[in-house]
């Protein structure tokens, strides 16, 4: 190597230029010392390269991020942290796939794990946050629980990575960005200058804590909001709805936008004491009566003949959807918005059960029952729900009116968890599992012992009947997530492959045994998860 004394500053740039053009076109700088030009160039470049690399110096530090807010929650026990890593590693797209066999579906257990961890008040391990945020990004249903568990550091991370911006929008109360209820100035400024999503988050956040303050905030700018925005803002008043809101909602009944009017009317009708509810009750009462002149007291219906301006103002949609008679359409809306308590007085002091049991003249029964169902759900009336649901063991046709499964599921939502589980257990005992999926979906997790027992019995009956387990895959999946882990021991007996019966589907026994094994494995895993979190 030619050792050269320190070359001028731009020596390296000069070497690069010569190299680019070639030594035939441009002579190399520096002494060639009897060497060919390209060799001399390579010699000099080698010295410079090593010199440059050896002289690498650290850079000036950029502005460091503000440290994340501390997470006061206690850390996860080590076993629970490992479990979380395992559940997150099972994300779709993380490889694998295919038939499940007897192995539990880990991803499906994540919601439960998160709920448990949140209930225990434990902090997420920081290194797991990226995987957790990526998972929550792909699954909106997981976001609230995932973000609650992820804690303040996840919001800190979300500000640094655009992929995780959703966390800032979706965080409870909008995250640390949103002002608290005491910061009046910041609230006002954000309300007046914020983006639509920020404003919705702000309004929802305040409404959850101080319903009146949220309504007052909304009223400050109500007149100047765009119609779509008014609709969204009005919708956020659903939480914490109370009689205080009535004057505002009454004014909204005269809104320029029909959708806003309809929503205001809907909200008012959910307030049984409101003037709108009383007006609707008057109208409905004029249409429905008990005819005592018949052999058996019978409900007779005289649907409204027109949808007058008053009805329209109170949110009745005048135009019926295609295929529906407009008179029955109007009737349905009136009954739906009428406080249920008004019917007892109107129909001879009868209880909900007695009313529902009355015969209805001229095929109006379906219409009337459907409207009462909607009213019971909207007003959260357990008494009427009970009457409309009837006995769980009654056959479909003999049940009180033609109440569909979807309506039953909604009605069940108004009952308390214990009563709900009992009703569904009764339904499954009488009708089996084929129609139970929707109803099971509204039951509290883990399932109450009676309900769990009914489901396991029904699965056992289905297996003995010789059908394939995938006809019940929906219920099986629910059972894996919702059955109490305490049932695992009882299920063990079912995991054996039974003798093939003559009338059974070929191989069904093996598949059932596999399905039950997966169920038992998943229940054990859930028990282990809970144990890990509580240790």
């Amino acid at each position, binding site marked *: 190597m030619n050792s050269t004394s320190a070359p001028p500053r731009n020596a390296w740039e000069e070497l*690069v230029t010569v190299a680019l053009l070639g030594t035939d076109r441009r002579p190399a700088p520096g002494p060639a010392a009897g060497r060919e030009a390209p060799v001399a160039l*390579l010699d000099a470049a080698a010295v410079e*390269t090593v010199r440059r690399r050896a002289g690498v110096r650290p850079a000036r*530090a950029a502005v460091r991020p503000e440290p994340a807010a501390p997470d006061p929650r206690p850390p996860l026990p080590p076993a629970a942290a490992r479990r979380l890593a395992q559940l997150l590693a*099972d994300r779709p797209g993380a490889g694998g796939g295919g038939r499940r066999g007897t192995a539990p579906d880990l991803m499906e257990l994540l919601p439960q794990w998160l709920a448990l961890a949140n209930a225990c008040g434990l902090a997420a391990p920081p290194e797991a946050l990226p995987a957790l945020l990526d998972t929550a990004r792909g699954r909106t249903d997981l976001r609230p629980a995932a973000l609650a568990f992820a804690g303040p550091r996840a919001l800190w991370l979300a500000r640094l990575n655009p992929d995780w911006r959703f966390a800032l929008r979706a965080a409870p109360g909008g995250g640390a960005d949103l002002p608290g209820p005491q910061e009046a100035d910041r609230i006002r400024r954000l309300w007046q200058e914020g983006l639509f999503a920020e404003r919705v988050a702000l309004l929802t956040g305040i409404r959850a804590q101080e319903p009146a303050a949220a309504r007052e905030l909304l009223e400050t700018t109500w007149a100047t909001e765009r119609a779509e925005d008014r609709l969204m803002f009005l919708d956020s008043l659903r939480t914490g709805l109370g009689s205080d809101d009535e004057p505002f909602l009454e004014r909204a009944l005269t809104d320029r936008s029909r959708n806003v009017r309809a929503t205001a009317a809907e909200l008012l009708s959910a307030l049984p004491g409101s003037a709108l509810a009383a007006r609707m009750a008057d109208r409905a009462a004029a249409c429905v009566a008990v005819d005592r002149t018949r052999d058996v007291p019978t409900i007779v219906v005289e649907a409204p003949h027109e949808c007058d301006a008053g009805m329209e103002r109170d949110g009745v949609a005048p135009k019926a959807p295609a295929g529906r008679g407009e008179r029955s359409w109007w009737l349905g809306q009136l009954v739906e918005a009428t406080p249920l308590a008004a019917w007892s007085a109107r129909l001879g002091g009868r209880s909900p059960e007695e009313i529902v049991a009355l015969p209805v003249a001229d095929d109006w029964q379906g219409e009337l029952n459907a409207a009462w169902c909607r009213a019971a759900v909207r007003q959260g009336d357990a008494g009427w729900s009970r009457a409309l649901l009837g006995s769980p063991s009654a056959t479909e046709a003999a049940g009180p009116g033609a109440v569909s499964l979807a309506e039953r599921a909604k009605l069940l939502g108004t009952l308390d968890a214990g009563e709900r589980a009992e009703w569904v257990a009764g339904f499954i005992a009488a009708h089996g599992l084929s129609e139970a999926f929707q109803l099971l979906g509204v039951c509290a997790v883990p399932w109450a012992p009676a309900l769990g027992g009914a489901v396991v019995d029904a699965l056992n009956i289905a297996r003995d009947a010789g059908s394939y387990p995938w006809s019940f895959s929906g219920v099986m999946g629910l059972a894996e997530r919702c059955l109490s882990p305490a049932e695992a021991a009882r299920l063990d007996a079912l995991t054996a492959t039974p003798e093939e019966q003559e009338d059974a589907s070929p191989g069904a026994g093996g598949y059932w045994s596999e399905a039950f094994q997966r169920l038992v494995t998943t229940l054990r895993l859930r028990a282990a998860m809970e144990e890990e979190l509580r240790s």
Partner: protein
Amino acid sequence: MVGPTFDDMTQQGVRWTAEQVLALAPDAASRKAGSKLGAAGPWSEAGSSDEGTVWGLCKGSGSKPYQTVIDVADSSGPAYKCSCPSRKFPCKHALGLLLLWAGDDGSVARAQPPDWAEQWITGRRRRAEEKRTTTGAESGGTSGDPEAARRRAERRAERITAGATELEQRLSDLLRGGLAAAEQAGYGLWEETAARMVDAQAPGLAARVRELGAIPGSGPGWPVRLLEECALLHLLDQGWLRRERLPDGLAATVRSRVGLPGSADGPPVRDHWLVLAQYDTADARLTTRRIWLYGAESGRTALLLSYGAAGRPPELTLPMGLAFEAEVSSYPGAGQLRASLGQRFTAPEPAAVRPPGVTPAQAAARYGEALRDDPWLDSVPVTLSRVVPAPDGDSWQLSDADGDMALPLSLSARSRPGLWRLVALSGGAPVTVFGECGHHGFTPLTAWPEGAGDAVGLC
């Protein structure tokens, strides 16, 4: 951990963590399949013995369950045996069983091994014992005809010299015509030259030549990088052609950089070695696994290399964060950290050892000094203490918590998911980071929180 677990720990060493088990998986599909089997459901008669044997029966699709048995205590790494037909190694059953064992929920109870597991273990240990005695007897014996070996080495050196001379000629031609012209010539030129170097039995030169071919397409600033790499290749050629005149250490470095196989004939260093990091890089021909070790007593950092051909995982697996007692011998060459793993005395176990750290400024200086021994070095392993990951424009840097200096992250580190694990671990507070520091920037591989806490893998 409570109750019986503590008892287990004292009897048979600490159980591994799930991550450490999953690090044994040969690929992502196995990792996933193994995770699914890491629950009690399909397993029966699972147990473990005080001697470090874990066994169990796993129900598969057939009528007869698979028999899986693992020897975790073997000092040369875990050994597996499973009656399943899978050619993956370890198979998903072995991984699942280890996970179950690691999960420690009582489903792998301490017990006497059943006959089928006992037979395998005994056979295995007997064979290992025999092997140890035979190799002990044979070492120093027949290493071939020394005269013939010398002649073979001479012939190879002549071929390499011819290759290096030819390469010098090609580099000269390249710079005579200019690098701008080389951009148009494209990849073919380099592929052909690389093939010539393979013929010349100089795989180190061939690999460098092949890399030159990729530089013109590597984005802005490529002429600088191409000139640098051409110049370093020239330096290596010249080093080889004049190796007799170089100091011994540097000559050995040149020999190993050119691609002559060395043997790890350094004195064996017995130490408590912490696995700092393990990561794979793969091209179409070869998977290369790098394992960084830190000796708790010697303070030495050593690099173990392991190779797997065409898509197969390298054999050696040492889960990050574990430490074990073993002998390590270094390869020849000044500034070379490569070593080979000799006898292992204990199985890898979780350890609280952390390597001591330096500041970003010291780390940069350390790389500069290392170039004195090996000017072809791309990076040196360094542990940084009290650094904060901070965004810097489109990039990130590790910034000295107690100063105003920072090391920029390398381009490859910026796009890895490990970056976000590092950022999340820090949360804006100082962390300790082990990684590779060089002219590309810093590539973080492992991090530790400021307070107590386990190592977090970033690669």
